[in-house]
């Protein structure tokens, strides 16, 4: 219906002004990287084949996202090689997966890392190893090129995402007061990256109400300010301010004070980091290895994945933690872990729309859109002239129940989502259909841990994060939210705790 109406209006207006209609480009594409089926097999406790072979490793890492790869990086760096990393998909990377076509590499999910502060010791160590940080200087080519971000509001673009045009004195006052509050929180040193370092019980009350309620209590009711807060929560947590703990909302702003104009980014997003990690530890990674059962075996474990039984002394469980209760024999169900469903899409553009508006920009956001806008994969290219490009479109399904949004993701076909994406882009680029030739879509039912009210100080979460046995949990969801630095911290930390136990059992390592 809507298509035919649009076409009618188009032809009517075209006829009115005596123009011939320039046809829209045909758009092709598919869903990609679906992992629903594997997840549902686990949930429904489907029957899996009996193992045909046995492999023995001192350590098995489960999950090849940033957490698992960071564990592997740490073990390898410390000279420990008796381990294997099992990845369910055919491509490692998890939320940092990437793709590539003849135009450019592009991200499938996480696409940047804020310039790490001094407390993110492991991230800085990694970036020194990868040549991103050299002699205290951040490599210029890995810092996001100018212009970084823009926001479409009131029919025009402004530089930066924080709304700056059209503010009333009341709006300005509230932004200023929020900034003051954030400044106070930052000064306490209790909001840090990684979060574990600063976490203090004195801030527990902030975890007992939603960010929206906290803003209300602060008499911050500006529509513009609340839009921006909501955008930030959707972007980092996949949740609205109503469904985000005030602690997490404050963490977003209070934990960072960049020392350099960033963020760090690459054409393939954080996939660049995954590629560099795989250059170092790729030989330990086995893909298409979905673990379906973990059981006790003596002091260690038996891990069943595909047709292989891995006998191991230690497990680093770096996959999303909620999966553990489906996999680990005898483990009680988990209640405090909630995840936000997401959709990302990569759009191939044959040329930029005439309505593009400004110099090519990295991240474009539309005010009052339910989506998070798009990132240009060729922005981080040193070329002066770019014709074809790839846009990565981000959409956290933040409104409504996650379970219902997961159903929506599953039930609607590619065409539905393609149209939804193009409609959203048409808010700003009326001629987008003349430019796009391909849209590939990735659906993620459990994309990001959601720091709902109470999640940060959840006893269940904190106990799993501290657990000091032979199975160590490492996913970023143990921080309550899914960001690169938390995943990397948890991964490295789990590896260190394994190494300290191995050292006891096998003598010193280097």
């Amino acid at each position: 219906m809507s298509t035919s109406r649009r076409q009618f209006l188009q032809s009517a207006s075209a006829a009115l002004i005596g123009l011939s209609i320039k046809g829209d480009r045909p758009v092709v594409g598919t869903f990609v990287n679906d992992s629903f089926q594997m997840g549902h097999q686990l949930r429904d406790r489907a029957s899996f084949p009996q193992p045909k072979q046995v492999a023995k490793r001192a350590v098995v890492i489960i999950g090849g996202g940033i957490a698992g790869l960071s564990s592997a990086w740490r073990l390898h760096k410390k000279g420990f090689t008796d381990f294997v990393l099992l990845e369910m998909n055919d491509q490692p990377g998890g939320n940092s997966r990437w793709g590539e076509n003849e135009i450019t590499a592009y991200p499938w999910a996480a696409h940047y890392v804020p310039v790490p502060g001094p407390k993110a010791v492991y991230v800085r160590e990694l970036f020194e190893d990868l040549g991103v940080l050299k002699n205290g200087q951040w490599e210029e080519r890995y810092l996001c090129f100018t212009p970084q971000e823009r926001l479409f509001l009131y029919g025009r673009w402004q530089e930066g995402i924080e709304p700056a045009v059209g503010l009333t004195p009341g709006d300005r006052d509230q932004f200023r007061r929020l900034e003051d509050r954030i400044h106070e929180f930052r000064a306490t040193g209790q909001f840090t990256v990684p979060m574990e370092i600063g976490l203090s019980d004195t801030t527990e009350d902030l975890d007992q109400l939603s960010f929206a309620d906290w803003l209300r209590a602060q008499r911050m009711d500006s529509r513009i300010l609340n839009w921006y807060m909501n955008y930030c929560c959707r972007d980092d947590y996949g949740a609205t301010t109503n469904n985000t703990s005030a602690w997490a909302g404050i963490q977003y702003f209070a934990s960072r004070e960049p020392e350099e104009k960033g963020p760090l980014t690459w054409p393939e997003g954080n996939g660049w980091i995954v590629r560099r990690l795989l250059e170092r530890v790729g030989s330990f990674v086995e893909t298409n290895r979905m673990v379906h059962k973990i059981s006790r075996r003596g002091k260690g474990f038996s891990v069943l994945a595909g047709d292989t039984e891995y006998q191991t002394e230690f497990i680093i469980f770096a996959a999303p933690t909620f999966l553990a209760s489906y996999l680990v024999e005898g483990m009680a169900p988990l209640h405090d872990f909630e995840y936000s469903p997401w959709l990302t899409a990569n759009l191939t553009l044959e040329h930029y729309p005439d309505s593009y508006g400004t110099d090519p920009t990295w991240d474009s956001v539309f005010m009052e859109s339910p989506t998070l806008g798009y990132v240009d994969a060729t922005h981080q290219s040193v070329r002066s002239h770019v014709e074809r490009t790839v846009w990565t479109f981000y959409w956290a399904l933040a409104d409504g129940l996650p379970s219902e949004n997961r159903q929506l993701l599953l039930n609607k076909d590619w065409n539905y989502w393609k149209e939804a994406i193009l409609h959203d882009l048409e808010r700003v680029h009326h001629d987008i259909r003349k430019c796009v030739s391909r849209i590939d879509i990735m659906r993620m039912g459990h994309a990001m841990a959601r720091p709902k009210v109470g999640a940060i100080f959840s006893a269940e979460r904190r106990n799993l994060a501290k657990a000091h046995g032979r199975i160590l949990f490492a996913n970023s969801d143990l921080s309550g939210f899914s960001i690169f630095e938390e995943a990397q911290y948890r991964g490295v930390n789990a590896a260190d705790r394994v190494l300290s136990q191995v050292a006891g059992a096998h003598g010193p390592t280097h």
Partner: protein
Amino acid sequence: MLLIAACGLIYELIAGTLASYLLGDSVLQFSTIIGCYLFAMGIGSALSRYIDRGLAYRFVWIELLLGVIGGFSSALLFLAFAYTQGFQLLMYALVIVVGVLVGLEIPLLMRIIRDRYHFRDVVAHVLTFDYLGALGASLLFPILLVPYLGLVRSAMLFGIINVLVALWSTFLFAKQLASVQALRIMCVVVLCGLGIGLAQAKRITIAAEDNIYADEIIFARDTRYQHIVLTRFKDDIRLFLSSHLQFSSRDEYRYHEALVHPGLSAIPAPRRVLVLGGGDGLAVREILKYPQIESITLVDLDPEMTRLFSTHPMLTALNQKSFSSPKVHITNADAFPWVDSNADSFDFIVIDFPDPTNYSLGKLYTTAFYKAAARHLSAQGLMVVQSTSPMFARDSYWCIAETLKQAGLKTYPYHVYVPSFGEWGFVIASFRDYQIPTSLPRGLRFVSVDGLPALFQFPPDMSPLPMPSNRLNDQVLVRAYDQDWKDISH
């Protein structure tokens, strides 16, 4: 009725928009034009009392006149701006004439149809549609007309509508008209005129815009990368890339001698030279004055540009067929990726890009780029960078010098006077110390051994300013450049 009202408003909006485009200060333009227009309508209404016979006949005539004057108003104004001094005079004259005619329309129409309806209904009817038409026009204008049709064609389209109304009136009021046939022929003739105008409107716009260039255009082409325009006035050939002047043949020797010789003559035995940008072959012409040079690699983005300067007789006369030299190797590539992927080393590197007017060009003026370019310098190598004007864009000039410094290079800034540009600046940069040369190739017209040291002296109004370096993640140069030129033009 609806259409009449819409047409009237459209002409007014067009005049306002055009004046804002061409003269700036939209508040002033719109206020004065709306004022004149309304006032003229008042005059029209007042004049309507003097018309007492042949109402329908005169109404048709008014519509016809409006169609012609309004329809061609935008094209006339464009041309007037490009070719005459009298733009404002013509604009207000047109606004007043259109206003008077529109002011006549409604009283006449009311009187024509008053016999058919009650007076109460006539007023209500006519005024309702009048205001409704105004609403339609004011919405149509910004949403559809300006973006899709442009001003010239919008005016003509509404001129056609006016004439169609006239034509329609000849049928509607046929009984009240004496010479219906003549009027209809008239309408058709005017209609044809406007139709042709509509079809040719693009040409009119181009003719007007071309006149923004002072001289006769001898070549114009849109390539994938830029808009190339060559103009000529007597013996002066000028090249514009995307509307920015690149050289004037009268004084380009000053620019290109100063770009090349202070650096190249200071290198003891230069053999290999790299030119980044410089698709006009004029820097290469200067470099070829050193017989010991064995090879010159020129990297320019636009193949159209290098082809033009390799083949066009007027241009090869200018660059003395420098691109035909067997020593010259032309590569059409984006400079930054080329510098990244190539491994050759050069004794002299000329960096001659367009000014940093946008962030894409700004990448070629960053620490990252200069570091990558400097990797190609041989042990004795020097590079020279075209660095905008230290006079008109002083912040920008010293920002470029600082950027070269932050890239780890020693810098030697200098400047020359090029009449068509004004004061222009360059920076020599290298890992080694630079000495001003004591000998130069023979036959130079501007650069001389005696004159060289003075080029490196900066008077107080161009002296160094503390500026941050320009980096990929913080392109301060593009903002500074934008600001510098804004300051000049205000």
